[in-house]
C-alpha cells in the first residue's frame, strides 16, 4: 500500500500533531505521559505549560533537554496555579492574547500542597487551564500517600498493617464550589474524550480544571501493559466516572456506563490493594456506590 493510499484510508479520531517526543524519562506504562500527549494534541503548539515538582518535572528530561515542543516553566511545588496566573497576565501585557496557559500538576501538587494557590486562581477566575494528572500518591518521591490516595491503598507511608483508612479527597467537588466555567474528568483510556475536553477548555475563558486519571504501574504494583485496561475499568466500574461541570452546577455525563461493573477485577490487578479483606473491599464498593448514586442525581 502506498503512503498516499494509506493516508486516505486511515481515519484518525484524534489530531496527528505530536508535541511530545520519545526519549522522555517516564517509567514503562506511565499514564501521565499519555495524559500529556493527548492533552497537547487538543491544545496545540501555542501553549505554555507550568510544571511544579511532580513526576513530569523529571519525565520531561534534565537540563538542557526537553521532550515537549512547547515552552515549559518548571516552577515551585505549591505554585503551579499562581505561576500560570502570572504567565497569563505577563503574556497579555506583552500583547499575546492567543497562547494557552496550562498548569500541569500531580495529585500531591493539586490536592495537597498546591490547593491554596489553585483555589486562589479559581476564585479570581484567571484564564488558565489547570490539569491534575492523578496517580493517587506521591509517586515521584517514591509512593507516599497523598490526600488523593484511595481508601485501602498501600503506600510507603501507609504500610499494609496501617493502610489508608480515609477516603480520597473530592477535588472536583471543591473546584465546583468555586463555580468556575469548566470542569471535566478524563481518563487516558478515552483519548477522544480527553482531546475533546482539552479543546473545550481551550475555547472557554476563565479557569478550567481537568482531572485526569493516570495509572502508575510503579506505584500501584500493576503490570505496565495493564495501564489502559485499568484506566478503562475505573470508568466502567464507576470509581472514576467521566463527566463535565459547567459553572459549578450543570453536570453532564461524558461516557455512559451500560452495565456498572464491581470494583473487584480492578482491585485484583493492583498489588497496592492485595492485603485487603472482603469487608474492607465492601467499604470501598459502598463508597463507590454512594458517590455514583449522588453523581447520577446531579447529571442531566
Amino acid at each position, binding site marked *: 500500500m502506498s503512503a498516499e493510499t494509506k493516508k486516505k484510508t486511515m481515519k484518525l479520531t484524534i489530531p496527528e500533531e505530536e508535541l511530545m517526543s520519545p526519549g522522555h524519562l517516564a517509567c514503562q506504562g506511565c499514564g501521565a505521559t499519555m495524559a500529556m500527549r493527548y492533552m497537547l494534541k487538543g491544545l496545540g503548539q501555542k501553549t505554555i505549560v507550568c510544571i511544579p515538582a511532580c513526576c513530569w518535572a523529571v519525565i*520531561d528530561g534534565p*537540563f*538542557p533537554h526537553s521532550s515537549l515542543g512547547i515552552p515549559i516553566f*518548571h516552577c515551585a511545588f505549591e505554585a503551579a496555579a499562581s505561576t500560570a*496566573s*502570572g504567565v497569563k497576565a505577563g503574556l497579555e501585557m506583552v500583547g*499575546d492574547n492567543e497562547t494557552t496557559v496550562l498548569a500541569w500538576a500531580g495529585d500531591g501538587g493539586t490536592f495537597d500542597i498546591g490547593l491554596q494557590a489553585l483555589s486562589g486562581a479559581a476564585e479570581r477566575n484567571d484564564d488558565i487551564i489547570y490539569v491534575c494528572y492523578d496517580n493517587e500518591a506521591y509517586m515521584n518521591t517514591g509512593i507516599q500517600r497523598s490526600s488523593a490516595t484511595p481508601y485501602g491503598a498501600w503506600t510507603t507511608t501507609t504500610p499494609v498493617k496501617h493502610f489508608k483508612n480515609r477516603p480520597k479527597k473530592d477535588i472536583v467537588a471543591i473546584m465546583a464550589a468555586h463555580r468556575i466555567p469548566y470542569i471535566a474528568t478524563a481518563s487516558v483510556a478515552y483519548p477522544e474524550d480527553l482531546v475533546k475536553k482539552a479543546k473545550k477548555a481551550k475555547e472557554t475563558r476563565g479557569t478550567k480544571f481537568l482531572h485526569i486519571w493516570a495509572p502508575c504501574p510503579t506505584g500501584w504494583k500493576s503490570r505496565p501493559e495493564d495501564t489502559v485496561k485499568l484506566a478503562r475499568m475505573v470508568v466502567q466500574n464507576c470509581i472514576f466516572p467521566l463527566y463535565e461541570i459547567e459553572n459549578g452546577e450543570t453536570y453532564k455525563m461524558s461516557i455512559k456506563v451500560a452495565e456498572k461493573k464491581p470494583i473487584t477485577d480492578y482491585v485484583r490487578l493492583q498489588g497496592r490493594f492485595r492485603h485487603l479483606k472482603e469487608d474492607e473491599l465492601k467499604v470501598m464498593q459502598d463508597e463507590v456506590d454512594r458517590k455514583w448514586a449522588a453523581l447520577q442525581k446531579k447529571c442531566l
Partner: protein
Amino acid sequence: MKKVMMGNHALSYGAMLARSQVIAAYPITPQTQVVELLSEMCASKALDAKFIKVESEHSAMAACLGASLAGARTFTATSAQGLALMHELLHWASGGRQPVVMGNINRAMAPGWSIWTDQNDSLSQRDTGWLQFYCASNQEVVDTVIQAFKISERFMIPSMVILDAFALSHTYEVVELPDQDKVDAYLPKFNPPFRLTPKEPHAFNALTSPEHYFELRYKLQKDMEKIPAAIEETGREYEKAFGRYLGQVEEYRCDDAEFVFVTSGTAGYTARVAVDELRKQGIKAGNLRMKVFRPFPFAKVREALAKVPKAAVVDRNCSYGHHGIFYQEIKSALYGEAKAPALFGYITGLGGRDITVDMFREIAQDTLSKPRPSEEIGWIGVKR
C-alpha cells in the same frame, strides 16, 4: 513635580514611574498602602498594568515570576511574615535570573506579634541572591525603585527595596517625582534576553545535574561581583538626569572623623543629628550609612573606614548565636586590612523600639571610653 507622600506611597510611585506591567501582591501591615495605591493606579489606568490580587505572598512571588518570564516588568511588596513565606520563591527568582523588584517594609518577626520595625526579616533573606537596598528617606525610595529596575534588568537579578516600618513607611515627606518621559529615557522597556514563547520553546528551571548546576550559580556570583561598579555607573547616570545620586554608601562628615557610626535605614538620619551634636562638643564624629547590603560594598566600606581610628556598627537586628549582622559583615570586610578601625558592635531598637539621638550619644561614649573592642555585644536601650 513635588508631592508630600508617605514612604509606602513612594514605593507605589516608583513602581508606577518604572511602568511596572504586572503587580501581584498580598496585603500585610505595614505594607498595605503600597498595594492600595497601586490598585487605584491600575483601576484608573494611571498605570497600564495588571494587578493580580493573590491569596498569599507565596503566590504573589510565583505570579511575579510567571509574568516576568513571559516578558513583563513586575513589582510586588511585602513585609516580615510575608517575606518569610516567600522565602522559597526568592531563590527561584534569583536562580531563574528574573529581575523582579520588590518593596519590603522592615518589620520584626513574630512571635510575639509585632508590626514595628527591625531588620531581621530582610536580613534573613541575605543568601537568597537578591540585591538589597536600604532607604532612609521617601525621596530615596522613589529613586531607588527606578534604579533597582535598571540594575536588575541589566544583570537579570532581582532587587529588594527596603524601608523601616512606620519610621519611613508611614512618615510623610516631600518627594520630587521625576518626569515620566525622563524616566522612560533612563529606563527603557523591559526586553529580556530570554522569555516564555511558543515561537521559541525552551524548558526553564529544569532538573539540573551536578554537571551544570555549579556553573549556573558561579555565574550568578560573578554577575553579583559586577554590580557594585554598575550601581556607581547607573547612579551617575541617574544623577545626570535627575540631580540625585544613589551610590552604595553615604558618608556624613567622615573626612576628618576620629569616630564613625555605621548605620542603615532611618537610624542613619538620626545618627547624623547625633554627629552634629557630638561635633559641637568637640568630638570629631561621622556617620557611614549603608545603602546597599547585597552585593556587599566591600571597596566603599574599606575606603570609608580606612582613615578612621574607631567605628561603632549599630545594628537593628541580631543573628542569634553570633552578633549584629551588619557588624559581622563589616568586620569580615575589614579582616586583614592594613588600615582598619577598632570596630565596636551594638544592637538596639529591636521590635520597633525607638533609636534616639541619646542612644547614639551613649554608643559614642562607650566606644570612646574603651581602648579596644570586646567580642561582647553592646546592648543599647535594653531593660535588664
